[in-house]
């Protein structure tokens, strides 16, 4: 497997719960809202802000414990 871009890593984790369609839409919405840029332009430096923006949505859908576990995993994979 090649090196994944930050938005690809986040997408993969979101899609596991939300499905590819909603994961893609959510990623686009929250990336533009928090960073004013499309997901493809998100860098590793931007990633923490993107994850912070996604947190309320994830907490609502999967609960705080699971949300924290997922975000930790994403953070690890992004080597932040």
């Amino acid at each position, binding site marked *: 497997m090649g090196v994944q871009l930050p938005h690809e890593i986040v997408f993969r984790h979101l*899609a*596991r*719960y*939300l*499905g*590819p*369609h*909603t*994961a893609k*839409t*959510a990623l686009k*919405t*929250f990336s533009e809202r928090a960073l004013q840029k499309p997901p493809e332009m998100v860098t590793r430096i931007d990633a923490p802000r993107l994850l912070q923006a996604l947190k*309320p*949505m994830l*907490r*609502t*859908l*999967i*609960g*705080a*414990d*699971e949300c924290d*576990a*997922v975000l930790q995993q994403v953070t690890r994979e992004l080597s932040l």
Partner: protein
Amino acid sequence: MTGLTKQHKAILIAIPVITGLVYLAIQSFFVEEQMRRMFFVSEIALMKLFGAAGCFVAASRYRRREYIGIAWYLIGLDYFLLFAKDLLFGRVIHLPNLDPDLASTLRIIFVVIGNTGSAIGCIMLARVWHVAGIALPGSRRLQYAAIVVGIGLAIAIVGWGTWQDFGHLRNGDKEAYVAVASNLGDIVSFSAIAPILLTAIAMRGGALAWPWALVTLSNVGWLLYDLSWSFERQWALSEHTLRIIAEFWRGQGCILAFAAGLAQRWAIRSASRN
């Protein structure tokens, strides 16, 4: 990878299918009227207990005061109160030496509280997309159309019966409170079918699509139960056959809530393990 294994999915599909088949097989053994009444009461009480267990299992994955956890608890509370009502204050099974008037009052209290909880829980689930900030599929107009059709269908199926029950209330029939509370709760729950289904469609391919799809099917099961009785004259079926069909759908409504709760728990647990 969706977070739910193939085995999980197979179990979730098998639960309502096997339950339905077992119900159809077992009910045929009860021929005598008294035994038959006892069978239906016991069977549906058990199904409601399963429904409650599934909802509480789902809710237990969330912390206190978390939005979806509260919704699951409220729906589970409804199933549990209906189960308790059937066993403690029912017409066929009840506590010994229970005053009939007190039993009737307790039935009303349990049904009103349960249905209020379920209605609020269903509205909460129907609004999750809005609370979480995710988009539903289709244009806004299509979404509204689906919701309006759902509400129209709910009123068409339960509305006339509710109207009649209000008439019984005016005539002083205390038991009509139970019917009115159930019907109003059903109208709200059925109205939530469209947004819950749209949420399931939005999350297709993801682990969370399963609980949402199963909650939708559970509400459809209850809708078909009401439909069976609402149009009993039009079906031109014997009461015997109609009862088998109606109780089949009520059992499916309950057991699908159980499956939905399991799916919710597995979706989250499985994903965190991956």
